[in-house]
């Protein structure tokens, strides 16, 4: 007797909806890329904020740069001498140069075009009028300098929070799309689902068929989206290579790539739950 061809076996039980699947994948991919990018920006900015506050150590930051024949180092040495004379040696510290100082100086009010040659001093223990007193002393001594709080303050924290919330909202939107997709898979195959229920199949097993589609979409889109966002961060970081570790005002840095993973993990976990919820609920309604 003629053998049964093997290619006839084990097709997908739920009817594939290829074009719809691709359309959903592309929407998810765009969302995942945007969400990963925002997560990198929020994560990098938060890390930088914390790191800068640690470096400024609740003091005031004085940024000094060169002008005319006076180099930045010479200006910094003069500022150090003047300020120690005013406030005592224990309060004034000349910080070793660090890539983060570009942002530290910018946050303390130094003009961006002066930062390449700037040097940073930290002054602690001054009162509320500290910045004004520092600025008048520096101006009186004809130093090219600025003084101020190095922290981005409340507005920066709020901005970081807003970006993080936007990133989380994108993850939630992706989960909602997965829930809708899983429900749609069941509804579009309602006859097949009813047939399987009449055969005595468990609801969970039937829901698993639709859930698998949702999971494949969330995994593929999130991982590809994360890779694209990481690539974008890496390219951005190569364009401005000297901004230091963490997000600066000028853009993300190479280590910020790792923040994209935070988004991917959150999106996948939410997607898993949404796929489970959507498929199970839809099967329950048909049962």
């Amino acid at each position, binding site marked *: 007797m003629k053998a*049964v061809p093997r290619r006839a076996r*084990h097709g*997908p039980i739920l009817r594939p909806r290829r074009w719809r699947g691709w359309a959903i994948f592309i929407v998810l991919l765009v969302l995942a890329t945007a969400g990963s990018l925002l997560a990198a920006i929020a994560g990098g900015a938060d890390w930088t904020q914390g790191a800068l506050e640690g470096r400024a150590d609740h003091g005031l930051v004085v940024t000094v740069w060169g002008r005319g024949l006076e180099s930045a180092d010479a200006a910094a040495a003069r500022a150090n001498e003047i300020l120690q004379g005013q406030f005592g040696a224990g309060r004034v510290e000349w910080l070793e140069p660090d890539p983060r100082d570009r942002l530290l100086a910018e946050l303390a009010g130094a003009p961006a075009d002066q930062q390449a040659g700037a040097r940073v001093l930290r002054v602690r223990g001054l009162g509320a009028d500290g910045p004004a007193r520092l600025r008048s002393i520096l101006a009186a001594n004809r130093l090219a300098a600025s003084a101020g709080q190095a922290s981005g303050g409340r507005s920066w924290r709020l901005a970081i929070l807003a970006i993080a919330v936007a990133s989380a909202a994108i993850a939630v939107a992706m989960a909602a799309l997965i829930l809708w997709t899983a429900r749609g898979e069941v509804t579009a195959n309602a006859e*097949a689902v009813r047939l399987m229920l*009449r*055969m*005595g199949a468990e609801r969970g097993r*039937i829901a698993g068929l639709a859930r698998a589609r949702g999971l494949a979409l969330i995994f593929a889109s999130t991982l590809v989206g994360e890779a694209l966002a990481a690539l974008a961060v890496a390219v951005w970081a190569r364009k401005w290579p000297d901004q230091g570790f963490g997000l600066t005002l000028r853009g993300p840095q190479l280590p910020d790539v790792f923040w994209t993973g935070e988004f991917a993990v959150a999106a996948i976990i939410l997607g898993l739950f949404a796929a489970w919820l959507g498929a199970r609920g839809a099967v329950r309604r048909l049962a």
Partner: protein
Amino acid sequence: MSTDSAPSLEPVAQPLVRFDQVSLGRGLAKPAPDGVSFAIAPGSFHLLSGPAGAGKSRLLRLMALAEPPGEGLVQVFGRDVATLRPQERRAVRRRIGATLEPAVFLSHLSVWDNIALGPRVLGRKSGDYAGEIDELIKWLGLADLAGASPAALSGGERHRLGIARALANRPELLLIDTPGEGLDEADLRRSTRLLDGLARSGMACILATRDGASVGREWPRLDLREGRLTLSDPLT
């Protein structure tokens, strides 16, 4: 012997199916049979006949637990189907093989996959059932069509596909409805002989058909006509 079934039950020891005063009334085109009572014994074969709209499909759907009973008692495998919990309902359904009209086949799957649907969704490993499906598909004369879509089959082939799919989980009770059109007398007689053979091997089988007379008069018959169910058995 021909018996008006309304208030009586055939004396069947431990019936697989028992209907007692069941109403088939809802939504039927013909006068609705009320107070339907009968019993189906293990290893028996019955033709369920009657005109379109008489309630044959409703009767099969009630036996297949495809819809809830209204009035009366429906027992399948000794259990009142109205009081089954979900897991009990699943367990009962797994002991039943049914092809109800309109028959649903998954047109994106091959004939082979449609037959294997039951074992697949019940979680059996493909290595365990693939041989059985191959045997089944050959036995029903569908081997050449194993890779075809059900949409490409003739009425008779689709009918046999339905029987094959219903048999794939090795049920104790087989319920087969026939389509109103697209099935000729030869196909129907062939199905009747197949199911009679299965009944002799211990499986209870019911084949619903609009025109029972064309199949022959040698089979036990449940006849739904003009709002009444009549039981007849040519051997008795």
